[in-house]
């Protein structure tokens, strides 16, 4: 049973993509960089290119970390839904298969300013 109920019961998912004004949510996090207390919540159009997402909101958000300015985005290792993954920077989020509420992660080996002492 998918819910304890007195009769047949179907829930309506609250955060469906069509309720987000033509845009979507994307979660992004930087592995081992926990100055940022949780993965970021980004709000973007599915037509936005991956390059715009990274060069715009993501690059700005990571600046408070002492490693923020040192990221070489061409060398970053990416994961999507916790699996290794290679984005195409010039294609859109949709074409890169980044759906609503997908989680992307990135790794920057060697950048460890605030890592465990």
């Amino acid at each position, binding site marked *: 049973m*998918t819910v304890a109920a007195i009769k047949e019961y179907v829930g309506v998912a609250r955060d469906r993509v069509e309720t987000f004004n033509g845009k979507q949510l994307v979660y992004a996090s930087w592995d081992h960089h*926990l100055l940022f207390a949780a993965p970021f919540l980004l709000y973007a159009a599915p037509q936005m290119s991956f390059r715009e997402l990274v060069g715009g909101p993501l690059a700005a958000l990571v600046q408070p970390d002492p490693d923020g300015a040192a990221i070489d985005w061409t060398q970053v290792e990416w994961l999507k839904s916790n699996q290794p993954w290679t984005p195409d920077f010039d294609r859109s989020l949709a074409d890169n298969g980044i759906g609503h509420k997908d989680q992307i*992660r990135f790794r920057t080996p060697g950048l460890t300013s605030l890592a465990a002492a």
Partner: protein
Amino acid sequence: MDMKVAKKKLGLKEKYRLMTRDLGWEPSYRTKDEVFPYVKYEGIKVHDWDKWEDPFRLTMDAYWKYQAEKERKFYAIIDAHAQNNGHLNITDGRYLSALKVFLQAISPGEYAAHKGFSRVGREFPGVGTQVACQMQAIDEIRHAQTQIHALSNYNKYYNGFHAFADARDRMWYNTVARSFFDDAMSAGPFEFMIAIGFSFEYVLTNLLFVPFMSGAAYNGDMATVTFGFSAQSDEARHMTLGLECIKFMLEQDPDNLPIVQGWLDKWFWRGFRVLGLVSTMMDYMLPKRVMSWREAWEIYGVENGGALFKDLARYGIRPPKGWDDAEKSIDHMSHQFMLGLYQWSFGTSLHSWIPSDEDMDWLSAKYPTTFDKYYRPRWDHIRKLAAEGKQFKNFGLAKLCQTCQLPVVFTEPDDPTMSCHRETSYKGEKYHFCSDGCQHVFENEPEKYVQAWLPMPALFREFEGDVGAWMDWVSLRDGQDNGDYVGSIDQRNFEQWRGLATSNT
């Protein structure tokens, strides 16, 4: 002349029989199933409702008398507190944040508990159970009222108290408590009793109320101490009711065991997540600290909780599934959550701050294996940014857990450097969780949790990311209620008024 005839006094047992058990009747126009339609669908089998024991044997007349007496005492002290500027006796204005957490997250929970017990008091067939639930329903609304009244005195002088009901419903750090109660109130009567009566009242109360009340006593807050005392004798009754309910279910039918165990696993974990707020309050928000969250966990979690589950082992109950993960997170959770509160403080109806050197030394003494290693470097860096005039604000907001609704500030149980990523798909939608515990809760009843109203997605869904419009909607007054304590209006007022009260200048 009329002779006065002494009325025969009823014995306690006799009185309980007449004024409780005798209030019930066998329905004749409708079947029992029609009168009590919600008592079977959860799968709990009950053969004899009269086996429900009420060890207090409290009857309504006596209950009413005790409670009235407590109310009189409570309001006398609260009035004196208001008249004597009791708010200036607290140790420091930072302490107010602990009160704001309490009023925004916990007092509305009392009200929710009131609604829930009113409902289950109607839904349970046993008359002993009905009366006990009715009393608890009245207790809980009294708790909500006395807390709101006690804290209203602070609302006259400080920010962040004025819209606690909006903050409770809409503010991201409060929805953990809100969703806990919404989840319980939308469950059946037996699950509600496990959620509130057993997990919340019995397993977690000591970790929730004791820290707040002793924190209040240590920090000169008479108003809060007073409502704590006024509620204390009620809590003894609530804990007993919760324990009685669980034993009753387990004794009625062996088939009840797996259902009860599943609820214990779920509600332990949900309650543990609510405690994240409490851990942060204990370790960071009390100017004069009582004990660390780790120390409280050792006493109330490990010792008391351990003894309880040992006692329940004879019914076949084992400790809750999330117990080991909980233990692994104890030395991390308060730091993780305070870092979040600070970096998102533009969106909180309370103030947070960067811990001082003295605070950090205390934290490293209390958390010798984790604080210096993982958390001090982050606070040091945040402090450096602040010194450069760049207060750290994380406008990236946060991914929230679909079940407990907290920002996913938690790390892997076995790797404190790695944020905990958990996700699943259900009917084509993606869902994210803060932990295995929350993911399990979701997967057992996805149709329930897909509907969760998550506060951060709502900022985009309903306000297209317009933070100003969102602030109006949560009744947050920018520049007054939010941000760093240092430089806040609360700080300025508290220090000025306290100066007037304690010096000649």
